[in-house]
């Protein structure tokens, strides 16, 4: 199993069409051009598929940058070492 961090960066890269290396703690709706509300929904669906989780609405609305996405996944038991 590859590290959760690597997988998470891959998902964001796939959804937003940017290099995985461009995803860091600064990445957010303000820095990534394609991170708009519709692509946010696609991000949620992609995360649910990859990590086998089901996010609730509160989590969906708050995870507007990379560290918050990580935090939400951690709440679902995904471990980022």
């Amino acid at each position, binding site marked *: 199993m590859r590290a959760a961090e690597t997988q998470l960066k891959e998902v964001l*890269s*796939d*959804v937003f*069409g940017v290099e995985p290396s461009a995803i860091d703690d600064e990445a957010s709706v303000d820095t990534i051009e394609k991170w708009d509300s519709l692509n946010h*929904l*696609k991000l949620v*669906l*992609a995360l649910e*598929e990859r990590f086998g989780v*089901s996010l609730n609405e509160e989590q969906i609305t708050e995870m507007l940058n990379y560290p918050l996405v990580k935090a939400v996944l951690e709440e679902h038991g995904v471990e980022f070492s």
Partner: protein
Amino acid sequence: MSPSEPDTRDAVRVALDRVRTDGTYTAYLAAQNALAADPSGEPVRIAVLRNFTVEPILPVLEVELALSGLKASMYVGDFDAVAADALDPDGGLARSSPDVVILALWLEGLAPRLVGRFPSLTDDEVAAETQRVVGYVRDMLVGVRRSTNAPIIVNNFPLLGRPALGILDAQGEASQHGSILAIGRGLLGVARDMPDVFIADHLSVFANVGSSDGFDRKKWLHRRSPVGTVALAPLGREYARIIRALRGRVRKCVVVDCDDTLWGGVVGEDGPHGLALGEGPGAAYTALQRELLNLHDRGVLLAVCTKNNEADVLEVLDGHPEMLVRRSHLAAYRINWDDKASNLRAIASELNIGLDSMVFVDDSAFECGLVRESLPEVAVIHLDPAKGDLATQLTDPGWFDALITSSEDALRTAHFRAEATRRDIQSAASSLDEYLEHLGMVAEIEPASDATIPRIAQLTQKTNQFNLTTRRYTEADIRRYAESPSAEVLSMRLRDKVADLGIIAVAIVRYAGEMAEIDSFLMSCRALGRGAERVLFDEVCRRARERGCTRIGGVYLRTPKNEQVAGFYPSVGLGAEPADGPGVRFAAEIAGVRAAPSHINVVRGRHAEVVSS
């Protein structure tokens, strides 16, 4: 830094490969991003009117169409503005001039009480709700039809999985699930009353993925996005399959390997009696053969391509008691030690079909890779027992989807078998002319009618090689031409001593004063080489003269596939003229057109007299 073109193509290829092998939703999203930089592909404009959040499905649709060489561009109507879009003839829908319209409806949005408060409804109210929903969809379809003649895809509705009445729902007539199915039946009736309306089968898609995983209640409630992650890809594929078929991207032939594909084991090593077939360990292969016969019955051509000694394989095909697929089912076979790419090319040319009409099925990763590399037009199915049921792997990609199961399709295989008999006649005749005389061909030419319009539309959609203009028409388009006082649609049916080929050629002609203008002139490739096209052209001229025309003309629009008809108009005596539009234009006085050869008898209309042409 902007990527150079080869980089873009490379990125697209890698992304599409990932979709093929992993097929996850995330892979589709990545591929959509890669495709955004690649403008190649035949354009198809899709307008989506919807009452729910369809956007997550669209990347799957776009990528699946790209896998068939189609470049989708989307117009998506405002959320829950179906009526406004459908009923405004000057609105966004009409302005988007779509090639296909998708009416995407979620039942809970249309009938919240039927879905959410079913136990509060009386039987009469349930019946009224059911009728109201069907009536609403009919109104929307009629509205869309006023703005555009494009084909419309509307969906039926999935069952809920957990009906509100619990176990009671299954016990009575006026049940919640019963009413959802009744709406689906009503929609089908509406669709069949209107030309070019097709059903996206949400009912089957959600039955397949399961409604508890397929529905995302939370996202429906908060974001009007009801489709769960597991259903996104299958739902997008469902629409892609329909659009692919509408655009004539239909695979006509399946070429299968033998060892560990048609049967378990290796005939050259295990011998015919050591093969796994029938019950027990061979059951999976027998099931695959059953599926191949289903394709055969639907008009798909079966062929075998295997590295073996011919005698071994024919012994199994003809004599093994557990075989379902027999030699008589095969339109062609290549049993030898040549490479499979060459063999596939030979089969394509024997059957007179394009490589892009073929699907290749093999258990060997090597052979699959070789065919993918050297013949990228061929669709490849790599059978892998580790990936589950073999028969499902054959049918799941939907390569053989067609929207018209005309009896013409079933005739096709019989035709290719008859071709073998014809070859025998040919070797007995001393010249091609003599051979054609021996065939005793009869061409039946008649104006389009209700009975022939589906096949005529299908031919305009599927015919690539002998097609002067490659204009694709729907049934509704054909009907409009046929009913126009200044146009005519002719179909030609061909039979000979050996077989009935069915309707194989179409001409569409517009009459304007002295000029008879050929809009479309095409013939199925299985009727090539008999001079039949000349007979149809003769008839076009004859009818034009009857209408008082003195000149006949048309254009040749070049495509990558219709090179062979570049010289057709000159061959019948038409001369090049300056064109005022695209293509090369030809015309002539009708009196100067060369007459057709005499080996085909012409019958006009259904009860017309036989006239030797």
